[in-house]
């Protein structure tokens, strides 16, 4: 009896000890968006960012000075422009990445070349692959990157602020009268987005209705006639917020469209709305504002 108790006691101690040891040694571990478990011995201090939105997120959660290299167009915040450039998101310079001796690489599944990511993994670097497609995804991404970079509490706080700001927009606008919205991604040919795209969800959040939400393709090319037929009340596209966009002129030839008749053609900063990062909340504010303007003419 006594020997059994001793055995059980020793085993328990061993298991507890093992668990404690495991917890200490796998100090920093998260699962990335491709299902891979990324575990680091300690917080990452030399980070390579392979997408502009990831650079923005890293700065947002307080890990900006831990970035040692970023891809082209990592232009926000201003400090990001001073980071060593390592190529483009779809064609980056592996040699330069190697020479910067990173301890964490943050990549983007649909934007980075699969080959490139594979090579980096084969060279032994921890590669965190992201693919955020909703606001919740961005929040989760912020929190997980916070864990990897030693800014967990700050990241959780910032992510929570981010979500609150978006919720505030939803509160204000989503119950208002629905407005038919045409979101123009590109002018020639006319690219728009279907209902599965995150921007379409944001239009819903603002109380708008994407006139092309029923289409199959995520970013389809549509004809001019189909836009005329669906008669949007507001046309939104990329440009400088507050200024008349250069592509507006083309629409002015079609006054049968309600948006043209009532002069509801607006630009919002595409970097805000198209980058899955912290400035999405600003993008949403702008989007909801312009959609709301079209509500005045009921």
């Amino acid at each position: 009896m006594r020997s059994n108790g001793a055995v059980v006691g020793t085993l328990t101690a061993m298991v507890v000890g093992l668990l404690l040891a495991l917890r200490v040694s796998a100090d920093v571990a998260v699962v990335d968006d491709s299902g891979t478990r990324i575990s680091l011995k300690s917080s990452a201090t030399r980070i390579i960012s392979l997408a502009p939105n990831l650079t923005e997120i890293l700065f947002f959660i307080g890990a900006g000075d831990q970035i040692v290299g970023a891809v082209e167009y990592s232009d926000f915040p201003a400090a990001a422009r001073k980071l060593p450039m390592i190529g483009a998101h779809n064609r980056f310079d592996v040699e330069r990445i190697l020479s910067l001796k990173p301890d964490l690489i943050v990549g983007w599944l649909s934007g980075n070349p699969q080959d490139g990511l594979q090579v980096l993994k084969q060279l032994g670097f921890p590669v965190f692959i992201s693919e955020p497609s909703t606001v919740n995804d961005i929040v989760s991404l912020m929190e997980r990157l916070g864990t990897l970079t030693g800014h967990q509490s700050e990241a959780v706080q910032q992510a929570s602020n981010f979500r609150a700001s978006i919720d505030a927009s939803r509160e204000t606008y989503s119950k208002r009268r629905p407005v038919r919205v045409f979101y123009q991604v590109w002018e020639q040919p006319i690219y728009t987005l279907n209902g599965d795209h995150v921007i379409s969800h944001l239009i819903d959040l603002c109380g708008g209705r994407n006139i092309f939400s029923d289409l199959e393709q995520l970013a389809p090319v549509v004809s001019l006639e189909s836009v005329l037929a669906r008669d949007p009340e507001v046309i939104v596209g990329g440009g400088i917020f507050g200024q008349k966009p250069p592509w507006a002129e083309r629409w002015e030839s079609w006054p049968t469209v309600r948006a043209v008749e009532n002069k509801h053609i607006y630009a919002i900063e595409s970097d805000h709305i198209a980058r899955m990062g912290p400035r999405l909340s600003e993008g949403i504010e702008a989007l909801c504002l312009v959609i709301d303007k079209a509500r005045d003419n009921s």
Partner: protein
Amino acid sequence: MLIFQTGRDSRRFGWVILFLTALVPVSLAISVSLGSIPIDWGAVVETIRTGKSSVDHTIVFELRLPRSASAFVVGASLALAGVLMQALLRNPLADPYVLGTSGGAAVFALIVMLSGLAYQFVSLAAALGAVVSLALVIFLSRDSGGWSSTRLLLTGIVMASGWGALISFFLSISQQNQIQGMLFWLMGDFRDRGPGLVHYLTLLVVLIASIFASRGLNLLVAGTLKAESLGVHTLRLRFAMLIGAGLLTAVAVTLAGAIGFVGLVVPHIMRLIVGPDHRRLIPAALMMGGSLLVITEMLARTVLAPRQLPVGVITAFVGVPLFLYLLRRGSRQEMP
């Protein structure tokens, strides 16, 4: 058409071959030494001796060397395929892709990309596409007498146009994020993996076969009838050349997507220098094509570093003025 082999000619050829034989390792050495990061060779040697890892060693042996080896194999394959195509079709405008092989490879590769299959299958699909395209051309252009150059060329051009239309179609229906990958492949670029045994073997086998067939190739250029009368089995020879060129093109597109100009321009350059005798032209074109692409690949990743340019773009920048210059100068020995 007679081919002179004067003593002076042979000596000159000797120098040229010596130069090219030296050019190959030199170009590889340059390519491995230059890049966006200066290499500390002391650290490389240290790693080789002691096994302690260093960034410099990794860059040289795991990044630059495989890419340079791929560049050589692709350049050599395309140059040799170009020589074969120009002899087969008796047309100076022929290049490895003229029969639609790169188009077929591209279409199969794009299908794999669109379907979302693992990217490893893209290379395989490209090789399959090249072979299928070749088979189609062979099948469609055959008539009772075999394959005349004209029929081959016309069938090939039409196939190439057809593939081109399919490529445009796929690009137009694909998603934004897929297009990136597709354009990357279509512009031609090297991955960081090196060539495999199958690539080396294919090049070697076709090279040896081509050299053995050199006499036949020389006579073929004078015309099928003439060659037949001089004892060449033209049907067999031309079929073999077609297969050989097709396989080489498949190797090239598997390793590097569609890289243009090398297959067209290098045979012409070497024909100006060593003459049209295929016994000389084949090894010369192979070595020159390989070295040229090794240097071009190095330039693509160094010239605007850290911006990386697609290799296919650099070969065009180099190939277009070079080819125009050659055209203006005129060849010393015309192709019939």
